[in-house]
């Protein structure tokens, strides 16, 4: 498959989806009764958190594919997915802190399981790259990174479940039986989630295309004898 195929379509779709999502957030979704205008952060923070956590799990699944097939492309995909999830995770932490400050009056609440569990996940994945690049042998590096990605990827849903079962309900619950979003808000949330997923896919595709181009370039220079 040619490098960067479909990137233009993906990019245009992402920009369009982001535009529609922003339009819905600021001009269609009603102002929430309790939090008021501040609740608009919800349409950014929560979809980003969901996409980021799903990215970590996806990275684990790709790592399984790598260990099963020994195909280095799966390792590359797993690496890029986790890398991108980490970037989005940083945005989640920052927007969450801003929302917490506006809503609760504190930048961070250590007694809130949702915040702390997300921080734990982020700290766990922050060790992924140092671990990976501490190993010089590419074969071993890919294998160890895949094992890490699978273990950490399994930890993410368990962590999510543990938080759900916890008793504290300071942090608003979005998905689940207690969710009672009115239809305009639910629609806006759905579109925002789709837009964030598209953004994630686009950034991953760009990163993959860049990495593959560099690999191809190295290979070409080697074939031509410029090694």
């Amino acid at each position, binding site marked *: 498959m040619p490098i960067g195929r479909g990137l233009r379509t993906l990019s245009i779709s992402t920009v369009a989806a982001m535009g529609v999502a922003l339009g819905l957030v600021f001009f269609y979704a009603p*102002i929430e009764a309790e*939090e*008021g*205008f*501040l609740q*608009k*952060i919800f349409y*950014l*923070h929560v979809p*980003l958190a969901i996409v980021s956590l799903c990215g970590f799990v996806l990275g684990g699944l790709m790592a399984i594919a790598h260990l099963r097939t020994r195909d*280095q*492309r799966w*390792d*590359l995909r797993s*690496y890029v997915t986790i890398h991108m999830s980490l*970037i989005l995770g*940083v*945005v989640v932490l*920052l*927007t969450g802190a*801003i*929302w917490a*400050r*506006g*809503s609760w009056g504190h930048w961070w609440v250590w007694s809130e399981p949702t915040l702390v569990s997300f921080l734990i996940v982020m700290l766990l994945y922050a060790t992924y790259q140092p671990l*990976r690049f501490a190993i010089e042998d*590419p074969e071993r*590096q*890919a294998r160890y990174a895949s094992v890490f990605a699978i273990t950490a990827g399994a930890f993410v849903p368990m962590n999510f479940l543990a938080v759900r079962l916890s008793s504290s309900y300071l942090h608003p619950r979005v998905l689940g039986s207690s969710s009672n979003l009115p239809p305009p808000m639910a629609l806006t949330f759905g579109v925002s989630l789709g837009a964030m997923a598209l*953004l994630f896919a686009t*950034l991953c595709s*760009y*990163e993959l295309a*860049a*990495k*593959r*181009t*560099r*690999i*191809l*370039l*190295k*290979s*070409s*220079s*080697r*074939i*031509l*004898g*410029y*090694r």
Partner: protein
Amino acid sequence: MNSLAATLPQGTGSGYVAAAYIVFFAIVLIYVAIMAIRLSRVERDVRELHARAGQPPQQPPQPAARPGDVGEPQLAEQPQLGARPRRQDETHGQTPEPHTPVRERETV
């Protein structure tokens, strides 16, 4: 800008909302800028490779062939893109192995 600010509801945390969205777009923008820098580096390497590929290969002076000599020409080791040339003492006086084109593994 002032008219836009006037449309925002006052005293309902609009500053926090603006801050959150600005942080998001700023990080995405920084990431895209980093990608652009990396792309320009790749483009520069491609140009360099293209320029080198257009030149005739640099070969060391061959000893004059005697009548009846038959054999494969030795591949001269070419420097890597952007790498300094290796000195003779770094190769421990041995002739470097000719490179065989192999498929590059997709490693990070």
